[in-house]
C-alpha cells in the first residue's frame, strides 16, 4: 500500500515546528522585534498561491472572480514582502556594537 503524500507534508510540517521551536529559542531577546517583522514577509511566501490563482485564467479571461482575488492577494503579500524585509533591514542596521576606541 502506498503512503498518502499528505503524510509526507505532515511530516515536513511537524519537523518544521520543532526546527522553529529550537531556532526561535536561540534568538536573542533584543532582536525579538526584528524577529516579528521578518516573520511577516516570509509568511507572505503565500504569494506563490496568489500567483497561481492570478495566472489561472486563459488569455481571453484574465479577470475572473478567482483571479481577481489572486491579484489582490499578490498586492497584499507584496506590501508585506517589500515592506517587511526593508523595515527589518533598516532596524538591523541600527544594532551596533560599542566602538572599540571609546
Amino acid at each position, binding site marked *: 500500500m502506498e503512503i498518502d503524500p499528505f503524510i509526507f507534508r505532515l511530516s515536513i510540517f511537524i519537523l518544521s515546528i520543532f526546527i522553529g521551536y529550537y*531556532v526561535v529559542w536561540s534568538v536573542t531577546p*533584543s532582536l525579538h522585534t526584528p*524577529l*516579528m517583522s521578518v516573520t511577516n514577509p516570509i509568511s507572505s511566501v503565500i504569494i506563490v498561491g496568489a500567483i*497561481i490563482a492570478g*495566472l*489561472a*485564467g486563459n488569455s481571453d479571461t484574465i479577470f475572473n472572480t478567482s483571479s481577481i482575488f489572486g491579484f489582490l492577494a499578490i498586492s497584499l503579500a*507584496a506590501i508585506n514582502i517589500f*515592506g517587511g524585509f526593508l523595515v527589518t533591514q533598516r532596524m538591523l542596521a541600527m544594532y551596533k556594537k560599542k566602538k572599540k576606541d571609546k
Partner: protein
Amino acid sequence: MLSANLSAIFYLISGVLFILALRGLSSPETSRQGNFFGILGMIIAITVTFLSIGNFSTGFVVVLIFLLIGGLIGAFIAYKIPMTAMPELVAGFHSLVGLAAVFVAIAAFLNPEAFNLGSTGNIKLGSLIEMSIGAAVGAITFSGSIIAFLKLQGIMSGSPITFKGQHPLNALILISIIVLIYLLCSTQSSNLFWILLAVSFLIGFLLIIPIGGADMPVVISMLNSYSGWAAAGIGFTLENTALIITGALVGSSGAILSYIMCKGMNRSFFNVILGGFGATEQSAGEKNKEQRPVKSGNADDAAFLMKNASSVIIVPGYGMAVAQAQHALREMVDTLKKNDIKVSYAIHPVAGRMPGHMNVLLAEANVPYDEVFELEEINNDFANADVAFVIGANDVTNPVAKTDPQSPIYGMPVLDVEKCKSVLFVKRSLSPGYAGIDNDLFYKENTLMLFADAKKMTEDITKNL
C-alpha cells in the same frame, strides 16, 4: 517550464533559506545576513512559481503590475515609518498576511482546477478541510490584527471592552466555526464558505477587544503565531513545501514569543486572552487612596545625584516610547559617560507594546546593544549601582510583586530597582500603571520623583550635568 519535482526542490531550498533567516537573528552580527537569506528565499520561491506555470502572456504582465503596486506601497511604508510606530506596523502587516491567506483560499475555492484540487463543487475532501482551516485562521488573524492595530495606534481606546456573556458567546462562535467546516466539507456549498469567513472575521474582532493596551505584547505575538498557522493551512492546500515550512516556523515563533511575554507577566496565556486584567483589579487600586508622602525633585537635583554616582542603570518603559525620549536619553548618557560614570540599560521582557520594543528604540538612538541587558542578566547589579533612572516604566519595577501575595502582579518578575542607593523616577503623575495598583517605590526614602514629560526632563537633566 519547470517540472513539478524540480520546482518542489526549489521550494524546499527556499524553505531552508527561511530557517536560516530566523537562525541569523541569534546575534546582531549575523542578523543582517539572515535577512539577506530571507530575501533570497523569497526571490527563489517567486521565480520558481513563474517558471513552473510557464505562462508569460498578458496575465503575467497583470501579475507583475499588482506585484509592483504592492511592492511600492510596502517600500514606501518601510522607509517612512518611525521606529516608535513599530508595534502598529507589525500588527498591520499581520493583518495583511491574514487577508492574503483568505484571498488565496477564496481563489482556490472558486477555481480549484487551477490548483489541481478537483473541480468546482467537487473539491477533494482533504484540500477542502485544509483550505477552510487556512481561510478561517486567516480571517481571525486579519480582524484581530486590525483591532490590535487600532488600539496601538490610539484610534481605539486601549482599555478592555467587556460585556456580559462575552465568553459564552465567543465559545459558541468557535464551536459554530467547527460545525461550519464540517457542513462545508459534506455539502461543498459556497454559501457555507462565505458564512464561515464572515463568522471567522467576527470572532477575530471579538477575541481582541477585551484585551487591554499593556497586554499587546502577548496579542501581537499570538496574532503572529496565527498568521503562521494560516499560511501553513494554505501551504497544505497548495502542496507547497516552502509555505508549509514557513507556516510552521512562524507559528511556533509566535507561540514562543507569547509564552515569553506571559512568563514576563507571570500570567497564564488564557488569563491574558480572556481579558479582565484591570477590570477586576480596579477595586484594589482604589483601596490605596490614602495620601503618603512623596519626595519630588527637579532636573537640578537629579543631575546632582547622577554626577556623584559611579554607576547608573537606566530602566526604560512604554512611557519613553510615548514621549519619544530615546534620543534625549542617549544624549544624557553620553554626558554621564564623559564624566566616567558607568551606564547600562535594564530591559524588562514586557516593557513596551511588543517583544523587544525598547531594544529597537535604544538601537535607533545609537545605543550600542552590548550596553543593553535583559532582566536576568542585570537584576543582581542593582544592589551595587548608585542610581536607577526609571523612565516611563512602572509596574515592572513594583516591589509588591515580590512581597504581597494579595497583589494582582504577585509573582511577576520585576527589576530590583529598590536595591539601588537612590532611584530617580521620571513620570508625569503618581497615577498607577496598567495593573491599576500603586507602586510602593514612589514612597521609599531613597526615591526621588521627577514629575515631567520624559523627554523634557531628560533634556533638562543633561543641561544641568
